[in-house]
């Protein structure tokens, strides 16, 4: 039974509009890239099965809209996330500055049990643009921010060229998996007819 047990990981992708969240996801899941920009409306969902250390698990990727008008998606969207991916465009300073807001917003909405250690991954995307000459956010700066937020793993990617995308998601999966490990104990009660109260018994399910 345990060998067949599969894990489902909910991964949320956040970041300003146009930084390439959907493209990253498409490159990762479908190995496709389109130059045409089309805004995500609300959210989009993709799944990908991944093998990791002999375990099969499914990534349920929640690709959200970056526009501000969609930012109040609310608790519902963030609830129960196993990993959060923060994406910015290395060519747009504002998108990097906003990472902090995205992170805060996520922690408020999702209110994970251990916010300090919640697995984030930061991705600086579009490193291919103009051969890197239009870049405004240095890797050093990005890494410094990541370090200041509890050593968030950092990747620089190009969704267009497929650079580092696989690697980034591998780590996303790995970290999500790690955070899912400490599972909640399921301890059902047994009816105590005599006292009219319930006794907690040891969980003995499955």
């Amino acid at each position: 039974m345990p060998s067949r047990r599969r894990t489902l990981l909910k991964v949320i992708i956040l970041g300003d509009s146009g930084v390439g969240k959907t493209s990253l996801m498409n490159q990762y899941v479908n190995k496709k890239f389109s130059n045409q920009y089309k805004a995500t409306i609300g959210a989009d969902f993709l799944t990908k099965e991944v093998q990791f250390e002999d375990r099969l698990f499914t990534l349920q990727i929640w690709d959200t809209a970056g526009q501000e008008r969609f930012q109040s998606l609310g608790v519902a969207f963030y609830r129960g996330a196993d990993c959060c991916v923060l994406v910015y465009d290395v060519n747009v300073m504002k998108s990097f500055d906003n990472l902090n807001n995205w992170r805060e917003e996520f922690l408020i909405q999702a209110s994970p049990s251990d916010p300090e250690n919640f697995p984030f991954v930061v991705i600086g995307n579009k490193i291919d643009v103009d051969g890197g000459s239009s870049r405004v956010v240095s890797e050093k700066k990005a890494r410094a921010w990541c370090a200041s937020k509890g050593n968030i793993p950092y990747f620089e990617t190009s969704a267009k060229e497929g650079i580092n995308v696989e690697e980034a998601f591998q780590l996303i999966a790995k970290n999500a998996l790690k955070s899912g490990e400490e599972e909640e104990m399921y301890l059902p009660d047994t009816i105590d007819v005599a006292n009219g109260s319930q006794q907690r018994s040891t969980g003995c399910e499955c």
Partner: protein
Amino acid sequence: MGSDSESPTSSDDSTSQNPNPNPHPNSTSIDQSLDAIEDQLTSIALAQPNDLASDDPASSSEEEEVFKDAPNGSVLEEENQKERNEGEIVEEEVGVVAAEEEVREEGRLGWRRVNSEVEVDRLSSPSSSGYAGERGSSGGASTASGIEEIGEDRGFDGNGRGEFFDGASDSQAPPWVPGKRHVDEDDASVSWRKRKKHFFILSHSGKPIYSRYGDEHKLAGFSATLQAIISFVENGGDRVKLVRAGKHQVVFLVKGPIYLVCISCTEEPYESLRGQLELIYGQMILILTKSVNRCFEKNPKFDMTPLLGGTDVVFSSLVHSFSWNPATFLHAYTCLPLAYATRQAAGAILHDVADSGVLFAILMCKHKVVSLVGAQKASLHPDDMLLLSNFVTSSESFRTSESFSPICLPRYNPMAFLYAYVHYLDVDTYLMLLTTSSDAFYHLKDCRIRIEMVLLKSNVLSEVQRSMLDGGMRVEDLPVDPSPRSEFSSPHLGQSRIATDSPDRFREAFAGIGGPAGLWHFIYRSIFLDQYVSSEFASPINSSQQQKRLYRAYQKLYASMHDKVIGPHKTQFRRDENYVLLCWVTPDFELYAAFDPLADKALAISTCNRVCQWVKDVENEIFLLGASPFSW
């Protein structure tokens, strides 16, 4: 609801206003109330033979089609429209939600599919969810066209298992069947999209827990969509109950952190589908108790699928029972017909053990109760019995050895476990002893040995087997003159005429097709006893497809009779091209009867009286009497 304002639908409205002063079947007759409205009914029947007060807002012509279409599962004339609807379930439902919630105005949330994204690249990777597949959203639908709708029961891929499952069994209680079907499908599969009835369980974070068809993990994207819809509406302080999208109904049920969704084009009433979701939730509680909620409180990303490991068969068997077991909508249980003394003997020994710390002792044969006894003040809800017997009979492991398993009775106490000792005494007959003590196994084993000995000695088990072979009430056995009393208590000319000269005439006319006056089938539900009795299926209701269709018709009747807005009603007479359906509800009982569509109304009514009398005459054998602690 919607249709009650239309004039032709007033048939049972008017009936309901006819008070039935005397509800007892012995002393009164259905004629009194029905005769009074007879003329009215006739004119209605002529004008709109298929119409009927119904809670269904569908128009009367659609009502007709319910019955026309349901058996085949494929309606060719509406093919195109259906294709379109099917291919776009998600799109449409989102559209409806969006419209209701004024999503776009608020500008808070929408879905990609709401927007017509024509430029999307039509890639559809097998590993991605249907959401990805739907990048060619309208394209996805068009590939579907030309493929006939897949019946609920028929495997699209030619996989015979599908047919076996819901389909071709003739017995009333089909044998245990394999659980999950069509695991290879996901929401990008055309076949998956064409299934007539989907059930989903998911968590409030959008993680899939159960899907009737297809692999849960592959459906993770679809599951997320459902969660997004529910949560979005909830964020607005509202609650989504039902979305109609063409022929499809999407029914939502939120139970704390557990979301249940049914997507169906079976045209069953909303109340029925919702009731089915309630039962599925109850089944989950039976396996895990409601304490799973605590896990979600502490950890929203809690994945409960491992806790439900290996229970696919339990759920698929329950879903299957929605189409053959009337207990699923009547909220009553049924007994195996037995001589009164035999059932008494079984009850006596069960009573003995109940005094020794057993909370409930239940002896059942398939889905029918032989006898049951509860400790003082303990009452067992019929739904709990249904879920418990489904749990036991669907799990192969209970058959092969004596078992001791934690179970929860959701209506008794949803928060905590009981322990069930389960042992099969023969191939169909099993004993369940429920206790609160987790170390009572050996005690219950001793109890079982004692019970088994007594049952063998008093021939109860052989009687049970004989009853299984003999079957239950048969419409063709309906007594012409059920009891001497009926002669005195039926002063109506109509009835005495039937009782004397018409039976022969009808026996000729309907030879081999059901009972007198074209009676095909009936279900009688006793309100006090929480029990029902259903006649055996006979020609022409032979195939399980026909049986399912009849149950769905009953179900619809049940829902309309108990409608909260325009009901409850007392009588209903309904004629369409498939049946004459007659329903009679009193404070004591409910009778559902199906007749030949050409059956004479007066005869049908008087036949119902005879059925009630017959049931009354044999109640000692078909019901478990004196089990007062079990009424809830």
